[in-house]
């Protein structure tokens, strides 16, 4: 029988733990090649990079294992090698401080890495996820955010129920309905998607109907084409028009699917409670809707998102309220969930109020996190992404650019972790002289995860006239409230080995 060669390629990096295990199984030596294919930052779109490290938040905040931050720093060094040294580094949070320290040290240890690239980035902003624990818990209300919340976007792909995507052929009775879920790729290469992805969902309908009219009109042109030249021109544009039409059909179907959910009573009730908490109403009592959901045995993660949201908006729950929720959850879902509840407390998401003070109202008011007069169709503020709530993390980025963090010193002290500024020397001649009207470029690195709604909010800031800054986003993982809480839940099945 032919000899087989075994090789092992670790992606994104080799793990000594794996090799240890293989060694214990007695097979480590059988591998001819044992290597790693290093993936640090993976580009997801023109302005988005992710490490896709699911366990980064849990490791950093629950287990105090900062290995993923080491790799984040390495990723940033790679980025600087390609796009030039970043002259200014701002940060908030313990992990941010650690990453900055590592970056500075790595630069010092390898002075040969001083390069002659003209810097693309003016600023790097490092943010700990635990500076803003609130945002991922709330339900996202942008088009892309809702797709992720409901169906889950994996590596820019989404799997959708196939019924609405069956091609309608004339005369057929709709037999042979597809059973495989419909898989679509979602990124800015698709014109229509780029236009609607970051809009509040309530503003998507009008864009789609406008597009429908434009495309219909374009197809109607065929009746007006009289000369050979005109016909030829029409035909040459046909592929583009067909692509546009198919894109429109897909997104109309997706929008319908989402609308079924967003118009449901349960979605409305859930959102109402979320918004009550975020605007500071009744965060100190046991909430009836949450109790009802537990009583009706709604999915546990939904319950956890709500109680954690209440806890964060109250700077921790009163002991009585916390004990009440815990008891109800354990009695309804099982006592083994003590372990998960313990994790959530450790992460700061669901904990007793220790200082007796609730800082959230001050933070909310100073940073204007709750905006009553939100305009979903033509937004003028980032709060449109949650129909009223401005993501705390993005507000911090916004205020850093203008007027600077000195104006919010007091509030910054209420948020966990140090805030700092570092400067990195640029060789003379590479110092950037900005042209009049040219925007600064800021790289915002979320350590612990970022949501699509936050990305939309940053893109909104980028395209604001006189905004002054364009943003590129990097993160350890693209998350939503459900995947995030799930990563903190204790695995309840016994290990496979």
């Amino acid at each position, binding site marked *: 029988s032919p000899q087989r060669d075994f090789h092992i390629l670790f992606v994104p990096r080799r793990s000594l733990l794996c090799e*240890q295990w293989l060694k214990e199984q007695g097979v480590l030596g059988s591998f001819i090649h044992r*290597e*790693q294919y290093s993936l*640090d*930052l993976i580009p997801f779109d023109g302005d988005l990079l992710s490490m896709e490290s699911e366990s980064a938040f849990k490791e950093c905040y629950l287990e105090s294992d900062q*290995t993923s931050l080491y790799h984040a720093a390495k990723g940033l060094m790679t980025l600087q*090698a390609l796009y030039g040294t970043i002259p200014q580094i701002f940060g908030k949070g313990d992990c941010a401080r650690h990453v900055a320290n590592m970056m500075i040290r790595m630069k010092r240890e390898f002075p*040969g890495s001083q390069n002659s690239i003209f810097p693309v980035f003016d600023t790097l902003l490092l943010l700990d996820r635990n500076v803003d624990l609130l945002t991922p818990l709330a339900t996202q209300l942008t088009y892309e955010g809702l797709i992720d919340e409901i169906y889950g976007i994996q590596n820019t792909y989404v799997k959708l129920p196939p019924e609405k995507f069956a091609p309608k052929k004339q005369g057929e009775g709709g037999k042979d309905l597809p059973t495989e879920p419909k898989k679509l790729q979602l990124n800015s290469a698709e014109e229509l998607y780029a236009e609607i992805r970051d809009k509040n969902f309530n503003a998507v309908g009008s864009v789609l109907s406008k597009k429908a009219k434009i495309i219909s009109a374009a197809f109607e042109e065929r009746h007006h084409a009289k000369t050979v030249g005109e016909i030829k021109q029409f035909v040459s544009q046909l592929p583009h028009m067909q692509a546009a039409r198919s894109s429109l059909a897909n997104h109309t179907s997706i929008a319908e699917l989402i609308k079924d959910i967003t118009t449901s009573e349960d979605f409305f009730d859930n959102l109402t409670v979320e918004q009550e908490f975020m605007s500071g109403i009744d965060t100190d009592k046991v909430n009836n809707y949450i109790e009802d959901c537990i009583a009706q045995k709604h999915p546990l993660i939904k319950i956890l998102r709500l109680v954690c949201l209440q806890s964060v908006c109250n700077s921790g729950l009163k002991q009585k309220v916390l004990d009440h929720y*815990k008891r109800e959850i354990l009695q309804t879902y099982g*006592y083994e969930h003590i372990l998960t509840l313990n994790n959530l407390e450790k992460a700061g998401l669901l904990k007793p109020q220790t200082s007796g003070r609730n800082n959230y109202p001050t933070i909310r008011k100073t940073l204007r996190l709750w905006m009553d007069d939100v305009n979903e169709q033509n937004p003028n503020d980032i709060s449109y992404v949650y129909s009223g709530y401005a993501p705390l993390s993005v507000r911090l980025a916004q205020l850093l650019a203008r007027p600077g963090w000195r104006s919010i010193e007091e509030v910054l002290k209420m948020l966990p972790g140090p805030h700092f500024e570092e400067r990195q020397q640029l060789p003379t001649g590479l110092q950037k002289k900005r042209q009049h009207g040219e925007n600064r470029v800021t790289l915002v690195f979320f350590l612990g995860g970022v949501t699509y709604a936050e990305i939309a909010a940053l893109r909104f800031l980028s395209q604001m006239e006189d905004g002054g800054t364009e943003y590129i986003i990097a993160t350890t993982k693209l998350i939503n409230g459900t995947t995030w809480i799930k990563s903190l839940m204790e695995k309840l099945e016994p290990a496979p080995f």
Partner: protein
Amino acid sequence: MSRVRADEEEYWHSSKFRAFTFDDEDDELSQLKESKRAVNSLRDIVDDDDDDLERVSWSGEPVGSISWSIKETASGSTSSLDGRDSSLQKGSSSYAALPKQASSYSLSSLFKGRNKLSSFQSLSDALTDTGVKNYAPELRRPKAEYKDYSGDWSPKDTVRRMQRGKVCSLERFRSLQDKLVLLDEAVAGHDGNVITAVLIFLKRTLRREILFRELEVRQVALCHLIHFLRETGEQKFLLDLLRFLDRTEEVALSQYREHLNIQDVEKRREFLKGCIGLPFSAEDTSHIQDHYTLLERQIIIEANDRHLEMAGQSELFRKYPRKASILNMPLVTTLFYSCFYHYTEAEGMFSSPTNLKKTFKIPDKQYVLTALAARAKLRAWGDVDALLTTKNWLGYTKKKAPIGFHRVVEILQRNNAPVQVLQEYVRLVEDVETRLNLATKYKCHDVVIETYRDLKDRIQLTAYKGKVERGSAEEEKINSILSNTQIRWKN
């Protein structure tokens, strides 16, 4: 691998980096060490019969071959040198034994390679390989790279090598002092992989008490070890460590977690019993106690009910055969089961709902809701009524629901309660709008009619006539109300 594979050479050369490492960071090493190393590497080549492992690495580790070495030499001499390399140039010239060429790469050559890059590869790794590499043309490269011969890498260098994925034997760090320096270097390097590797070594070669004592003052390493022990499931070691650190609550929770790995119910029960005395927080202690008690009861109930089912005598079990065992189910699920199959049992029986309510202090709200759902499923409307009826001290009965009658209606409707039953409770919904909505939705005509009459809304009442059957009692009722001259209609 003694033969040169020409095509392989081509492949490796045509790809990205010319960067390679031979001996890394030799910057500070003395001539003597360099000589020693060169000699050692030669010895390896001569002694080596081992063909198996040809390693290639993405970060540009060289593949050994003569032609390759020569090519490297040639390229090395033409690439530009950074200023700081020139000092090493001097050092190299004193090497008489082996002809060699100072070689380095500049970042510009790095970026030449970069253009062919289709993905992010370890540029950062490549960046760390700066400095002059001294090397001798060899027949073959590998061993010097991968085997830690009689080397005397300092802890810092060892850590550096490990960070770049090179295999390093740590055995030569024998003294406690050396081991601790190695650990501290690993921690300072931040690479979790390396820290874990060093910890594995220390765990193997140090007495437990010493390891624990040293880790107590090294927080980062401690966290890594705990994480490692969790991942590998080394429960006993982990618990010993946590006990040493006096992290009692964590000990308790870690131990409790183990129950998930016990499939056999009896064993699990025993295990949970053992958990009760552990140092949990006060709140958690009561939950663990409840967990044990619940499982204990479930085992008894399950045994009895299985027996009943087999005997075939119970009509209830015949009509509604059990779909699953009650073991390991949450408390509320168990209560539902008990309300379903054992509703009328005396409080003394473990399987009775009232016993469960008392033992686990289930609040009224939850109890009523669960019992309601169970009795509704069995279409036992009398029981439903009794649940919602309270007698006050005068003997008058009153309907009360701790959960809101609209919820009661929902549950009943879900179980296809007949309209007459539903109507009773729709009538009791306090909020008028909700009452109307539900009544209309579920066709509780009497309630709609009565409500419109109470609201004195003539228009709506008249409109509703269209929704009832012609000639029905409801139509008559509407007509008689509409013709009632005593009512002061608002419209």
